[in-house]
């Protein structure tokens, strides 16, 4: 009986240890609930930042023009896309190929979606009333957090600081965990841009700078 009892105990402890290990090493991408790090949903249009922001070097705020003066950077309305895509409705390779085979290039199906959203055919004539594209929002903060792009952009915070180097992403992915601690890492540093030199960082660590 004595032995039995001891066994019982050693089993128990063994079990606990095992469970513990499972908890820790189950999968390395374990997030505490609400943390959407590495979130990279599929978008209705396979829009590539890598192409536009990377190769083409289009400035972020050309499309996300809200960032400087508003809470939201904003998703560009279709008319902004059309500024260029009025003229571009197919891919590079397609154009090159078409030139070689001297034929009309075949329009890209993705770009066609933009036209469609405006109710245009790929050739640009109005066919329907059109309806806006439903993009999937990648970077979300909880309801009780007030985040505004305005002060950050005006303080000269680089977009990449929070959004990662988007110009290398074909599909946008949330790089940072956007946790409160992560915000504070930055808010705890000294900021020249703040109005009053005194208590600079203090002001940024006030709860009410994000929660109200």
């Amino acid at each position, binding site marked *: *009986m004595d032995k039995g*009892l001891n066994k019982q105990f050693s089993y128990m402890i063994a079990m606990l240890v095992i469970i513990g290990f499972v908890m820790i090493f189950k999968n390395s991408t374990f997030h*505490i609930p609400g*943390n959407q790090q590495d979130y990279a949903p599929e978008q209705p249009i396979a829009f590539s930042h890598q192409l536009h922001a990377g190769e083409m070097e289009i400035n972020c705020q050309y499309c996300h023009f809200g960032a400087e003066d508003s809470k939201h950077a904003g998703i560009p309305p279709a008319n902004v896309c059309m500024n260029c895509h009025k003229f571009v409705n197919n891919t590079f390779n397609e154009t090159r190929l078409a030139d070689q085979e001297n034929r009309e290039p075949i329009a890209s199906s993705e770009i066609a979606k933009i036209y469609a959203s405006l109710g245009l055919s790929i050739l640009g004539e109005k066919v329907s009333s059109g309806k806006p594209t439903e993009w999937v929002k990648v970077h979300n903060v909880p309801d009780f957090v007030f985040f505004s792009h305005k002060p950050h952009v005006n303080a000269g915070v680089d977009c990449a600081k929070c959004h990662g180097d988007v110009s290398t992403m074909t599909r946008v992915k949330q790089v940072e*965990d956007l*946790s*409160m*601690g*992560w915000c*504070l890492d930055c808010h705890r540093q000294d900021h020249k841009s703040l109005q009053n030199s005194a208590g600079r960082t203090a002001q940024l660590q006030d709860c009410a700078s994000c929660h109200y």
Partner: protein
Amino acid sequence: MANQISVREPQIHGNKNHADVTQDVCNIMDRKPTWLWWLGFGLALSALALGLVSVSYQIATGIGTWGLNKTVGWAFDITNFVFWVGIGHAGTLISAILFLFRQKWRTSINRSAEAMTIFAVICAGLFPIIHMGRPWLAYWMFPYPNFRGPLWINFRSPLAWDVFAIGTYLIISATFWYFGMIPDLATVRDRAKSKLKKFFFGVLSLGWNGSFRVWHRYETVYALLAGLAAPLVVSVHTVVSFDFATSAIPGWHTTTFPPYFVAGAVFSGFAMVLTLMIIARKTLQLEDYITLNHIENMTKVIILTGGIVTLSYATEFFMAWYSGNGYEQFVFLNRALGPFAWAYWIMVGCNLITPQFFWFRSIRRNVVLVFILSIFVNIGMWFERFVIIVTSLHRDFLPSSWSMYTPTWVEIGTLIGSFGLFFTLFLLFIRTMPMISMGEVKSVLHYRGNGDNQNG
């Protein structure tokens, strides 16, 4: 010296020998429960059920189901909390402090008193949680590393102090209780018939074998624990009193609160021990172990602490008058003559008048009377907390926000439920654990010169 002791009335009556003690105590656990036990257990369970219903309704719907308002933010919830913490004081006090003072008469009541402490503290601990607007976030009260900055807790807040005080108190009392029980558990194990029981107590008794070398260290550790528990008892209710003493509200903002509350706690605690012991003694035929002397001694403690409480009431009024602070003065006048005067006078009646009866030996040794009076003390002490909390809040500084308070059935249900929980736990305890510390009782059975002949 020897004969001096021998003339003293023995702690335990009906000249028992060691075996009898083991027999009597273990009997309580072994034999079938009496109908009285079943009755009590039934009542306790139904009360507990009512409590569960009320609490779950409250948590599902909102604190709004309580009678609180923008002026009176606390009432039954914290009243019950302080009340139960108070109850939870006698146990550890009896075992720890009386142990340090080598009070032999503690031996036959300390075990159940400690158990009572633990159950009372469990009841108490529930209230700070259910009184929250968002109880599911109660874990935010603990400082733990997190992704919020990290955002810790506010160590300046009396509520945070409470978390630590109550937590520590619960853990230490439980340890003290269990530690003191190990030898008895071994005893039970060694006389157990069923395999299950053997296993169960085998595990709990940690292989105790009565080796005196272990006894020797055991005694030291027990003494150390007692030495720790004693100041802990005092600290806990001091901290609880800080909830009010450190605030800015007249009637709360009072420096005498710590001693006042501790005395009050012991006062109510002993009353509750009496209530329970008298019941136990009757229903479990423990007259030989819990003798009239025990009861008498406890009533004496009640007289003392009751006196201190009375003094505190007087001091409060004096200070209010002496301070010359209008708001203070108003609050105390308002207690005695305001809308909640009835509560105040119940409190005074129960806490000031009741103990005075115990000056008479005849009453002290009259079990029925003592029982009734002890219940009055409990009622009085509950109202003391109610008065302190509600009357101070409902009319504070700005008359524009003065208001009244009336409890809803949900609150009353919760109160009853807490009693249900308490008694359920206690009744289960006396059925499953040796409710009298056999080891210690045996040690006070005989003195040199009186016991030798009885070991046939």
